[in-house]
């Protein structure tokens, strides 16, 4: 015999047959697709929400000043591999912090020296000291506040804007005045929308003491995005002169930490290590303390990496539901082939070769999975967008995830359809025609 055989059935004819078969069993087809819909949908949703979370966190970290360098005292380890573990440039102290003695603190002199030595490379050095959190009660309103002593460089380092009045000035610092900058939302809640808060005063109870502060400036309230959202109570920041904070707290003249802003963004890593070694040089002979410099940037990459790991893990779990969905498809294909044994026998008697039967059923299973996949993508994008809007950061659905989902659902169709299809292809036409 010559090698000529029955011509293969066109793809279009196979797809048409697949749709006809699915249409004949609509409910069953939808239920079968459900597994794929849920699987693909949840993977897409999780990836989108994860992207949104990452974007939201990097946004809020950016607003906190990702390029800023935090210079802080750090306990020396008793031996070299001891308490401080360096992770991606972030030092995590293993033992509880003990307070440094007053003479160990970073001083204004060091900072002045540093500014002289580094010159143009330093844009701002912001010292701050927390007075602590407290409560402001006026009439029936009670608000939580977080009182921070700030210096003149603080707005530059923290990206603080003044929308009304002014920021603290040298005069306030020198005179250790009880003036403050508050947020617009805080002012509104305290004095009402129509009252200009400038010049007004309020009493704040901090650590059992009550202080009165006069408002000189207002800054927009920033809820901090997704990061702060997870905190329980809203606490409004109140900025007072650093000198005032130190006087009220009765603390020493030095600092445990401060923030440095570099003038150019490019040479951050070098600037970071130069800054660290400059201050560390003051502490070479100190028994228990040294200085570390770290930046938001390095922390951010760690956090982002952690999120993507978690995201991957959850997506992997969601992918298991895809596997279950695939098994469902296989199950239904087996049932369908048993039901249609006579049809398969007839097709074979009419001249359908095994591979035509196989192609017909694989096409049917791929069509189920592909439709399920597309519905799943639509659902996942909607769900992901909803989740992202809850996080307050609109993430676009990842094109990669969508493309991969389409490809993956087709692969599921081929993989889970091929066993039932080859079972159908191998049916003996005589047996199949006799099947009741």
């Amino acid at each position, binding site marked *: *015999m*010559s090698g*000529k*055989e*029955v*011509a*293969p*059935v066109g793809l279009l*004819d196979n797809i048409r047959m697949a749709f*006809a*078969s699915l249409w*004949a069993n609509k409910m069953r087809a939808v239920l079968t697709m459900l597994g794929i819909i849920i699987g693909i949908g949840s993977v897409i949703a999780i990836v989108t929400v994860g992207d949104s979370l990452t974007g939201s966190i990097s946004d809020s970290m950016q607003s906190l000043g990702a390029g800023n360098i935090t210079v802080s005292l750090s306990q020396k380890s008793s031996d070299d591999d001891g308490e401080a573990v360096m992770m991606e440039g972030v030092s995590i102290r293993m033992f509880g912090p003990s307070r440094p003695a007053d003479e160990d603190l970073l001083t204004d002199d060091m900072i002045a020296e540093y500014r002289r030595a580094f010159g143009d490379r330093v844009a701002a050095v912001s010292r701050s000291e927390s007075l602590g959190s407290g409560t402001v009660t006026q009439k029936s309103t009670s608000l939580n506040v977080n009182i921070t002593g700030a210096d003149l460089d603080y707005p530059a380092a923290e990206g603080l804007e003044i929308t009304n009045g002014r920021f603290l000035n040298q005069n306030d610092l020198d005179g250790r005045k009880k003036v403050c900058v508050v947020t617009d939302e805080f002012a509104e809640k305290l004095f009402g929308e129509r009252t200009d808060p400038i010049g007004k005063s309020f009493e704040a109870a901090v650590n059992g003491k009550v202080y009165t502060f006069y408002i000189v400036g207002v800054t927009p309230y920033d809820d901090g995005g997704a990061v702060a959202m997870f905190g329980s109570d809203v606490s409004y920041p109140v900025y007072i002169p650093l000198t005032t904070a130190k006087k009220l707290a009765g603390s020493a003249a030095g600092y445990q930490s401060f923030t440095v802003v570099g003038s150019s963004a490019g040479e951050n890593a070098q600037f970071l290590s130069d800054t660290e070694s400059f201050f560390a040089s003051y502490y070479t002979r100190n028994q228990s303390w040294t200085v570390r410099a770290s930046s938001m940037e390095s922390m951010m990459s760690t956090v982002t990496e952690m999120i993507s790991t978690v995201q991957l893990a959850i997506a992997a779990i969601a992918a298991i539901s895809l596997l279950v969905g695939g098994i469902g498809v296989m199950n239904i294909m087996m049932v369908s082939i048993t039901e249609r044994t*006579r*049809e398969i*026998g*007839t*097709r*074979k*008697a*009419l*001249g*359908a*070769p*095994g*591979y*035509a039967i196989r192609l017909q059923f694989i096409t049917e299973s791929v069509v189920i999975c592909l439709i399920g996949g597309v519905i799943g993508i639509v659902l996942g994008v909607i769900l992901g967008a909803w989740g992202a809007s809850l996080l307050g950061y609109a993430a676009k659905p990842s094109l990669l995830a969508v493309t991969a989902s389409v490809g993956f659902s087709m692969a599921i169709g081929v993989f889970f359809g091929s066993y039932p299809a080859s079972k159908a292809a191998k049916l003996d*036409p*005589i047996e199949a*025609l006799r099947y009741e």
Partner: protein
Amino acid sequence: MMTRELFEGCTGGAAGGPLIAIRSLVKTYYAGRPNELEILHGIDLTVWPGEFVAIVGESGSGKSTMMNIIGALDRPTRGTYHLDGVDVEKATDPQLSAIRNRKIGFVFQTFNLIGRTTAQKNVELPMLYAGVPARRRAARARELLQMVGMSDRAKHQPSELSGGQKQRVAIARAMACDPALLLADEPTGALDSQTSRTVMDIFHDLHEQQGKTVVLITHNPELAEECGRILTLKDGRIISERKGSGARGTA
């Protein structure tokens, strides 16, 4: 229609030779096992183009096995079978598919139309596997449905057709690729006498007007009597061969 080019280079396909040439055919099931069962014990059968042959026999006589082998659904265990010059016992599975597709038109007792598929699409099915383009498939199916008087039911599904109508669609389907042989297995077995008559008349028409070779397998002696030649099968052997009237019955 296109059968020649498909089977070109085949041995023995000389024009003017027999359509079916079966020599010393033996069919054994479970060969080499303790329950070995020989169904056909050396059949010789020659059918010439344009003949209308009936194979009759009681159940258990080996009719079904005979029909499976003639229909290229099964291969003989021993002996030779040439169909339209093609060596069937040596054909591979895909080649058997091609033989069934192009050379044989099956008509079954239980019709075996594909459910939830229109009469039109059912008739198109063999042409789908023959690689006929969609437009030509549709045109040919319409032509065939008209031939069996089912044009007005082209869009109906099998469940909306009576038994006789189903069988007429099935005959149209069997004719789709213009096969060399129409192989009918108890085509009227599930029909009442009146619709049986209609169906038999279609076979007669195809035989007389188009010169189709028809092999009819039946246990009904009256139907067999209408054929040109009657072969009686008993216990796996052809025990008698005689001429039939070849005339349509009146039932």
